[in-house]
């Protein structure tokens, strides 16, 4: 059986803007990476302004627009709130509009934000709709080096969190990273062998690998304190949680899609 192609991962987007992002690795070196940000309806994580500034496309899912309107000035206390709001204007607000405050919608609409009014749909969540919107309207020529950073996807209502994790599985060919103040999570598809480059200044050391949705009969890692060696993982049995990143590159291969999670450092 031919070896699996390698997928590399890096959280260089979390590095403060004063330090240059790590040079793109592997295939990314030829095509610069671009970012899109999606804001869901939860309190903004502390690094929201940094990621927003890095992104070329910013979409709010319904009440996520309230969070940007209220939260960005709070995260930038030294600046004039009105100027902050104009600078941190979403490109689009998408959803059924039952959470976004009317005056917030009006405000952004008058600044040119696209308002996409979708009726509630049992089959797709707000995040799902936003990802679809971004993949249909990529900020660059194509999606091959597009990373979608999602704020507010974890915590809150558990059914929302599960729906958001399911989006990672449904769009397994799209690079989507779910971020909260505490953790970063993304999918490691079984179709690839994975190299995760660890940015120690902003993430770690706590990490985990979770077979969400189906058991894994064989996973193998390097770079962790407790590496897996052809190990099986499943709910009801072993999951790799409270593991520790020990090296700058962690490698993972598995017969099943896995969710990788790593803690984010408090001063990020």
């Amino acid at each position, binding site marked *: 059986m031919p070896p699996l192609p390698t997928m590399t991962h890096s959280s260089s987007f979390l590095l403060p803007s004063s330090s240059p992002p790590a040079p793109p690795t592997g295939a990314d070196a030829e095509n610069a990476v671009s970012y899109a940000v999606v804001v869901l309806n939860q309190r903004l994580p502390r690094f929201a302004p940094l990621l927003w500034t890095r992104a070329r496309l910013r979409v709010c899912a319904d009440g996520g627009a309230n969070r940007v309107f209220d939260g960005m000035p709070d995260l930038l206390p030294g600046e004039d709130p009105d100027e902050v709001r104009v600078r941190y204007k979403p490109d689009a607000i998408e959803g059924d509009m039952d959470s976004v405050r009317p005056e917030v919608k009006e405000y952004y609409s008058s600044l040119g934000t696209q308002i996409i009014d979708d009726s509630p749909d049992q089959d797709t969540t707000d995040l799902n709709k936003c990802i679809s919107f971004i993949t249909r309207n990529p900020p660059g020529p194509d999606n091959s080096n597009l990373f979608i950073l999602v704020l507010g996807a974890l915590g809150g209502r558990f059914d929302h969190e599960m729906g958001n994790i*399911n989006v990672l599985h*449904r769009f397994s060919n799209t690079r989507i990273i779910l971020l909260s103040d505490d953790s970063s999570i993304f999918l490691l598809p079984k179709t690839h062998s994975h190299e995760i480059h660890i940015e120690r200044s902003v993430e770690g050391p706590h990490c985990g690998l979770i077979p969400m949705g189906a058991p894994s009969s064989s996973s193998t890692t390097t770079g962790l304190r407790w590496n897996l060696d052809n190990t099986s993982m499943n709910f009801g049995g072993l999951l790799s949680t409270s593991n520790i990143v020990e090296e700058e590159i962690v490698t993972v291969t598995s017969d099943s899609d896995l969710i990788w999670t790593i803690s984010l450092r408090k001063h990020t």
Partner: protein
Amino acid sequence: ASPLGSRAKMRICADGGANRIFDEMSQMTNDLDRNRYIPEIVEGDMDSIRPEVKRFYSSQGSKISDKSHNQETTDLHKCISSIRHRTPDHEKANLCVLVTGALGGRFDHEAANINVLYVFSDMRIVLLSDDCLIQLLPKTHHHEIYIESSVEGPHCGIFPIGAPSTSTTTTGLKWNLSDAEMRFGSMISTSNIVDSDKVTVQSDADLLWTISLRNLT
């Protein structure tokens, strides 16, 4: 947390959970008397509990169960084991363990806490947050979920986290499942709505049930 505490027969703090009770319970109940909220047991590897908190509860009669020698299991796992061990067989069927603080925070902790529901699938364990509760519906049983609409709902969901389901059937939901397949990567039941006083679920896979909690002032 206070109504739950007063109803419980046994109250256990997992390590730093004791700090939370010490700091926050009296704020929530406007009661300056910490002596009213003394856990029977403080259990775990003791790397989070503050020394003065441990001393206080120990002096008030809490059993301090130091399991720091066991690094294989999480603090919640240790607490559930401990509860099971201390519960007489004839009481086990009627025992329900209510867990606060299991959700949110670090995602790997959350996954490990959810795994405890699967590992101890013969026990009733409910994970609670401000926003919702989660319970396991083992595939071995047909489930009847009685909805207390004054405190919970209407948002709910059902998830095959451990393995896909080829057949799940429900009643009592706005969007019921009828012999439906559910799988991560495809359809799972999120943002569903409770439509009746009683929801029933039957499946060929273990499922997680979640329902939103109303804001109780």
